[in-house]
Every structure is written in C-alpha cells, then in structure tokens.
C-alpha cells in the first residue's frame, strides 16, 4: 500500500472529491464519467474518496460483483476493478486517494494497488495542489 507519506503531492488540473455514499444516487457514475472525459483530454486528476465512498476500492471486492442469479454467466466488474483499469490506463495523470480515517473507521483500509491512503488533515494540500475542485455529495 502506498501511503504517500513523504512524497511531494503532484499538481493536477482537477480534484474530484467523492464525499457522498455510493448506492444512494448517481454521483459515483458521474465521478467516473467526468474523470474519464478529463483524462482523455490530457488533463490530470486527483480523485479523493471520503466516508462510504472509500469502499469503492476495497481489495475485498475482488474483480467481479457477486453472480446475478438471473444471468448467471455474465460478469459485472466491481468499482475496484474499474478504478484499477483507470489507473493503469492513465498512470501518470490520475492519482486516486482514499481518506485514511474513513477507510479505517469502516475496516476498509485494504485498497487495491495504486490507491494512496491520505489522512484527512492533508486534504487541504489537495485543494492547493489542484486548479479546480468538485465535491460530489456530502459525507
């Protein structure tokens, strides 16, 4: 796990902080769509997850969702898989951070490789390191 403790925070064009919880609305879908569109334009992005959104990249999610009992053979990727694919497709321009406190509070601090744990008191560094920022949802 990369804790990003002492490294210089890379600058980025946009910070997208997913504050709201998954499975309550479409903010996670919007975060993926906006991130993809920004990265395809050559922009750099910090993704930060807080609260229950830290569960999006939990290692224990595995590659696929549980089976669909009405379509048994079909595979459905987990958000952890989608995050991993995004990070490998845009290795230098996407940086994905998960709030360490929120992760630990939920027993979810084992993330897929590439996700950097950051303490919440460093969040302001991300605001300073990016030109623009969006907070999606509320904790």
């Amino acid at each position, binding site marked *: 796990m990369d804790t990003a403790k002492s490294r210089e925070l890379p600058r980025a064009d946009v910070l997208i902080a997913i504050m709201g919880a998954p499975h309550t*609305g479409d903010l996670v879908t919007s975060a993926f769509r906006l991130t993809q569109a920004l990265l395809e334009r050559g922009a750099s992005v910090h993704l930060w997850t807080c609260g229950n959104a830290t569960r999006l990249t939990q290692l224990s999610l595995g590659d696929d*969702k549980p089976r*669909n009992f009405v379509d048994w053979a079909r595979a459905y990727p987990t958000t952890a898989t989608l995050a991993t694919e995004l990070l490998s497709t845009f290795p230098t321009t996407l940086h994905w951070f998960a709030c360490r406190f929120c992760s630990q509070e939920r027993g979810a601090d084992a993330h897929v490789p590439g996700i950097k744990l950051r303490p919440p008191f460093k969040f302001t560094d991300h605001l300073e390191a990016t030109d623009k920022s969006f907070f999606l949802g509320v904790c």
Partner: protein
Amino acid sequence: MADTGRRLLIIERAYRGSVETQFADVLYFVRELNRQQGGMDILLRGLAVTFAAAHPAPVPALRIAGRRLDTLPDPRETIRTLVSEGAGVWAQDSALAEFETGPDWLQKGVRRASDATFPDWAGYLSVHFL
C-alpha cells in the same frame, strides 16, 4: 376494499448508483421478492415512474478506461419482466404528467394510480417503502 392478499411496495427514490449497482438495483430485489411472495403490487412514485416508460431506447453504456461498460441497470426492462411475472405495477399519475409525451409513453400492463383509482393500503397485508 377487498383483501388483496398481497403486499404493496412503494418506490419513489430512483437511480441509486448505476456503476456500482449494475444489475443489483432495487427492482432486482423486488423481482426476487415477487417470486418468493407469489405476487406483489408495486407503486412507482416521483421520478421512479420513469421506470415504467415504454421508451424503446437502450440503456446507455459508459466508457471507463478502455472498457465499454454496458451492464448498467435497466429498470424499464425489469418492470416489463415484473409485469410478465405477475406483479401488479402502478404508476402515480401526478408524476407521470411530468414525463409523459403521449398515450404510448407508459408500458402496457402498468396501471395509473390517481385519487380515484389508487392501491388501497387497507387491502394489503403490509405496505413498505423501498
């Protein structure tokens, strides 16, 4: 009101997480519960009435990294399936008025719920919001 012998589920919160939910949306649970119960009634309210649109357009897919993600929830198809599997589906007309574009907008087999024709709670074994 005659006893329906059924339970009534009311859905008013719609579109709760496409990428993370995919097939396992609220209607996936409703479909399974309908099977276990041997028939249920469902009342769609608010934005959830759009689940009952006959709209023929497919659910849009997303591009994420190099992947085309085409496994997003398809509530309109699930409502079609629920009707075919014996569920009673209602859609509240005050919400329908926001979205309807003509007489063919609503799926066949879905009933309009209005003040005059409304699923009477007293006729159900239980009523639940999902």
